[in-house]
């Protein structure tokens, strides 16, 4: 295992210390590294709190700041945070209007946030589950929440900034999640620091199609295909799953998993945008970069969110976080 770190035991806190120091103009670290929160809170605004296992940086800490989250709770690598973290975060950022938890659909995350919600007052929860890779998910745990979570956090964050109430924000989050689909492909495995070796073996000519953001196996192992062929299968799965909703304007988000350079992400973006356009979908907004990662895994995911006038306006609204910043 090759990582820039001091030790497996300290990688997370060293990284969090560095992160908050580098962005000390907008962020504050909670006691015992339980959460990262905005430096300046806005009284009366619903507080948005997310979190999850670490190893997906900049998600979620990188999205704390004006126009997006109020706090993020980092768990151990690929392990959901514990309820005391969300409780401490809620205590620190709730200014009276309640908290919205934004939770990716993994049982660990759901249960830990649920236990925190049971202990706190005035909490609502939005669960994201945008990953279309998981088939026949209706009688199981359901779909995983992946890169589309960023879109939910950005759009709901902008609406919270406008002063909407908890119920309205929960409804908006569910609407954005329902309009969002993702799927990914891995070229290499990630290596969890504590495990010390790659999560999965993969041949030099293979890819894992439909991989999860923890290196979970996907739909199938396949020979590595061209960017066009990969994008075609993903876009097809997304559009088929969207059904009648797949018309009009969309946000196209190509997300790197941590070990993939920008050059390749833009190649995939180029393939995906042509395919969507050919299906009559207009790419109204774009995002390309490594925002929801799986440690050092090489590969990417494609996310499509169908937009309307409301969500487009909220996407464009000013945001100032460590990882996403515009119009301010």
């Amino acid at each position, binding site marked *: 295992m090759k990582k820039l770190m001091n030790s497996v035991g300290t990688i997370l806190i060293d990284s969090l210390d560095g992160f908050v120091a580098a962005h000390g103009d907008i962020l504050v670290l909670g006691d015992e590294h339980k959460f990262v929160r905005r430096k300046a809170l806005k009284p009366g605004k619903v507080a948005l709190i997310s979190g999850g296992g670490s190893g997906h940086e900049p998600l979620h800490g990188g999205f704390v700041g004006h126009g997006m989250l109020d706090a993020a709770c980092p768990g151990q690598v690929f*392990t959901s945070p514990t309820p005391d973290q969300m409780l401490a975060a809620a205590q620190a950022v709730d200014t009276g209007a309640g908290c919205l938890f934004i939770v990716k659909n993994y049982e*660990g995350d759901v*249960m830990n946030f649920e236990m925190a919600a049971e202990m706190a007052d005035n909490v609502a929860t939005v669960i994201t589950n945008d990953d279309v890779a998981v088939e026949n998910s209706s009688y199981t*745990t359901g779909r995983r929440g992946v890169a589309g979570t960023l879109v939910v956090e950005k759009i709901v964050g902008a609406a919270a900034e406008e002063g909407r109430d908890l119920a309205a924000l929960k409804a908006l989050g569910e609407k954005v999640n329902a309009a969002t689909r993702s799927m990914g492909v891995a070229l290499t495995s990630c290596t*969890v620091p504590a*495990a010390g070796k790659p999560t*999965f073996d993969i041949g030099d000519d293979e890819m894992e199609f439909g991989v999860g953001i923890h290196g979970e196996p996907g739909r199938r192992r396949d020979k590595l295909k061209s960017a066009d062929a990969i994008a075609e299968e993903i876009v097809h799965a997304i559009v088929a799953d969207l059904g009648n909703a797949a018309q009009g304007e969309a946000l196209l988000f190509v997300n790197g998993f941590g070990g993939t350079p920008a050059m390749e992400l833009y190649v995939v973006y180029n393939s995906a945008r042509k395919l969507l356009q050919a299906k009559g979908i207009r790419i109204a907004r774009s995002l390309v970069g490594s925002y929801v990662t799986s440690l050092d895994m090489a590969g990417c995911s494609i996310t499509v969110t169908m937009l309307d006038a409301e969500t487009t306006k909220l996407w464009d609204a000013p945001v100032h976080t460590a990882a996403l910043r515009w119009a301010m």
Partner: protein
Amino acid sequence: MTETLASVDIRSLVEACATTISAHADELTTLDQAIGDADHGYNMKRGFDALLADVDTLAAKPLPDALKAAGTKLVMTVGGASGPLFGTFLMALGKELPADADRATFAAAFGKAVDAVAARGKSEKGQKTMLDVFYPVRDALVSGTSDAEIAALADQAAEATVPLKAIRGRASFLGDRSIGHMDPGSRSSALLVRAVAETLGA
């Protein structure tokens, strides 16, 4: 298991559980690497190491309170799916267990604790989760099986998760590809059952 639980040595129990989890942490993580996200061993070790660090405080409490405190501790340190589930189990067990528990009231409390896990996990038997060990152990407790037999039976129950297709937990994302691997949470449950059985039987 001794007929009454009044004399249970909490310190020995915590030490036995922490020792077995620590000794098998890599194995648990390897199991989780095959069909999950390669953290189960570290999650469990983090939790049981925390219990060990707190053992003086725990040992000073009556058993039900010690169980509740241990459960809370697991919830606050383990994270992932196993944290809320093992934590809920111990918290529920502590809540259900009368101060003067005997074998029969323990079996009843154990059953309620398993049900609490199932409620928290929205899961049931046969879905390739820790419940596939917890339920057979409950049944054995209810029917008065010996400690040594229960330990063996827990191992078999964990083994029996190999051919199952996962319906809950992270392995469910794999569909048919989850078949052929042991469920990590079942393995850790069996290890804990054996540690407790051997400590109480000793």
